[in-house]
């Protein structure tokens, strides 16, 4: 496709041309109608004036007969810009007037009242000119022709017509030119979008559509395309990360499982050894199932598949129920569990998932807490609920080793385990499950420094996920 055909085929160009065409046709119709009406009006006026003149001349004739009529005609001829007069006798001979002969058009009634005549060869207005006139019979066999020159009017109409034609032509040219310019400007930007999307299709997912900065429709379109691309890229990265991590987190226990079974088979210890091997194999399989279930749940949450099961729930009840579930565990670990769950806050959420998210946070807090300190006091894990504008915040804070600033983003990703917890099954999915739950509810999870320790803040919008319109509900820094 050449540049020209591309230009002609472009939407802005076709629109401009169509618009111009419609405009020119409308303008031509209006100009034509106006000049037709103006011409008709002027002609009618001329005919009326002629009738009046004929009446006046008839009166002259009645008052003083032919001589008086002749005198009147001669007097009128003398005036500048006068009408056309011709008085013929019964034989058709000219008696008076400024027309040399009876115009042939008037002799024949079919031609109407318009005729042409030859003006005397003196001066600028010489030549054949157009006039309207009317022959009338006067008593005594005389024929009187009174006419009015309409050549100027005709010339004016002609000039107007020409001007109109030129204008239409000029307008068309300008319109097409403007169409080309506009099309090129728009095409250039559309081409940029097309080019960028081709590059993206060919695999460069990090590329974005350039914006002109004007904030117009194309910019808005490009902006939301970019947001879509960002989301796709994020999902693609997440997917890649998942496959990498599945490879690691499922293959490792699978290998262990296989090794256990193999070792048990090789073991010469007989039935007791087989039994022991099978028990361990079962444990290993159960851990695998746990990991697999957590993975599936995260995948499902990220797909937004559970969004329909949201209901109004009391966040205070959710928090204290989870706290109650873990209180004996904390006590066994030598920790105090401090719960602050004021009532009166509202939340639209999936009770099961939010409970699980809080449980994961509490579970982590208990696991990572250092239960003994140098001064012998018991450590406390704090669970608190508070309102924050249109959201609620559930804070789980511990006094454990915390998470280093550079590791916090990573800690929310799937499978990531900060080194010390490597051996614990499923532990790596805990925080990423919390992040997925937060995201499903239109909220976020923040990891903060509890100085010392870790403070995990789960932020959920009170009115549920529907209230968040922005496409970016990803936890801060999860990219």
């Amino acid at each position, binding site marked *: 496709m050449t540049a020209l055909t591309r230009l002609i085929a472009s939407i802005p160009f076709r629109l401009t041309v169509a618009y111009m065409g419609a405009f020119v046709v409308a303008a031509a119709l209006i100009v034509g109608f106006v000049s037709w009406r103006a011409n008709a009006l002027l002609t009618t006026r001329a005919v009326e004036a002629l009738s009046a003149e004929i009446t006046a001349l008839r009166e002259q004739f009645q008052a003083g007969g032919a001589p008086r009529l002749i005198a009147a005609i001669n007097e009128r001829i003398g005036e500048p810009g006068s009408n056309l007069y011709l008085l013929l006798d019964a034989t058709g001979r000219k008696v008076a007037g400024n027309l040399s002969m009876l115009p042939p058009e008037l002799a024949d009634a079919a031609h109407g009242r318009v005729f042409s005549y030859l003006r005397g060869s003196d001066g600028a207005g010489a030549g054949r000119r157009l006039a309207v006139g009317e022959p009338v019979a006067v008593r005594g066999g005389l024929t009187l022709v009174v006419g009015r020159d309409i050549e100027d009017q005709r010339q004016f109409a002609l000039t107007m017509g020409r001007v109109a034609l030129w204008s239409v032509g000029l307008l068309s040219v300008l319109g097409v030119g403007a169409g080309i310019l506009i099309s090129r400007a728009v095409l250039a930007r559309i081409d940029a979008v097309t080019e960028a999307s081709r590059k993206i299709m060919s695999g460069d997912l990090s590329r974005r559509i350039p914006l002109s900065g004007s904030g117009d429709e194309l910019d808005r379109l490009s902006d939301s395309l970019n947001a879509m691309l960002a989301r796709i890229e994020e999902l693609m990265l997440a997917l890649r990360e998942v496959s990498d991590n599945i490879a690691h987190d499922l293959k490792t226990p699978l290998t262990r499982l296989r090794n256990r079974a193999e070792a048990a088979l090789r073991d010469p210890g007989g039935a007791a050894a087989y039994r022991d091997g099978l028990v361990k194999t079962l444990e290993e399989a159960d851990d695998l199932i746990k990991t697999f279930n957590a993975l599936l*749940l995260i995948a499902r949450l990220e797909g937004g*598949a*559970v969004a*329909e099961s949201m209901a109004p729930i009391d966040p205070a009840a959710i928090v204290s*129920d989870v706290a*109650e*579930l873990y209180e004996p565990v904390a006590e066994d670990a030598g920790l105090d569990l401090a719960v602050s769950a004021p009532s009166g806050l509202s939340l639209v959420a999936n009770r099961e998932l939010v409970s*699980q998210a809080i449980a994961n946070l509490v579970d982590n807090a*208990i696991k990572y807490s250092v239960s003994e300190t140098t001064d012998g006091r018991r450590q406390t894990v704090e669970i608190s609920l508070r309102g924050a504008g249109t959201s609620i915040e559930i804070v789980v804070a511990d006094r454990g080793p915390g998470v280093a600033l550079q590791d916090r983003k990573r800690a929310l990703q799937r499978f990531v385990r900060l080194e010390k917890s490597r051996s*614990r099954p499923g532990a790596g999915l805990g925080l990423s499950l919390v992040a997925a739950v937060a995201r499903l509810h239109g909220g976020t999870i923040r990891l903060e420094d509890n100085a010392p320790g870790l403070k995990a803040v789960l932020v959920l919008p009170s009115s549920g996920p529907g209230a968040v319109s922005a496409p970016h509900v990803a936890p801060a820094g999860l990219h």
Partner: protein
Amino acid sequence: MRVLVVEDDRETALFLQRSLKENGHVADLAGDGETGLALAREGGWDVIIVDRMLPRLDGLSLIEKLRGEGARTPVLILSALGEVDDRVKGLRAGGDDYLTKPYAYTELLARVEALARRPAPEEQVTRYTIGDLALDRLSHKVTRGGQAITLQPREFRLLEYLMRNAGQVVTRTMLLQNVWDYYFDPQTNVIDVHISRLRSKIDKGFAKPLLHTVRGSGYMIRDGAD
């Protein structure tokens, strides 16, 4: 106990049949939904185990038809779909319990036995007694050997559930689901800690323990005599 197993995977079905037989139960098999429905209509079953995805007639439709005909046999649904919504759909269709694949056989056995022994809704018991342990559901009072025992509300519900299933194995998952109404799997074995607290309140200082740990399965409350 007679159990009907409606499961299209032959190996799983045979495994269940053999395992249930080892535990003293009789299990008949149906390989598809229509056969399952026909057998279920014959009646005489204590529990029906239905796989959710079956050829010819899916598990949920089977249960709906059965319930539509007035059959009240307890039904345990087995499914690979384990999310909240799936479970709600299964129970809404008329299932009495829902177990997600892959499951441990001990878990399945405990649930089947609990279903078979479940009292009908109209015969609600207000008082449970095991040996010298008594729980009054109306006054919320627990006594052992005439001695009052103070329990937290959740401990009371835990004991109540255990006593309702006295002599039956109750798994950790069953406790978590029925006492706490949580269907997720906590990473730490929180149930064990709650049980040991309860045990210290009801068994400590008494010669005969009532709350027993069943290795590899869960817990059981029973009078040591049996």
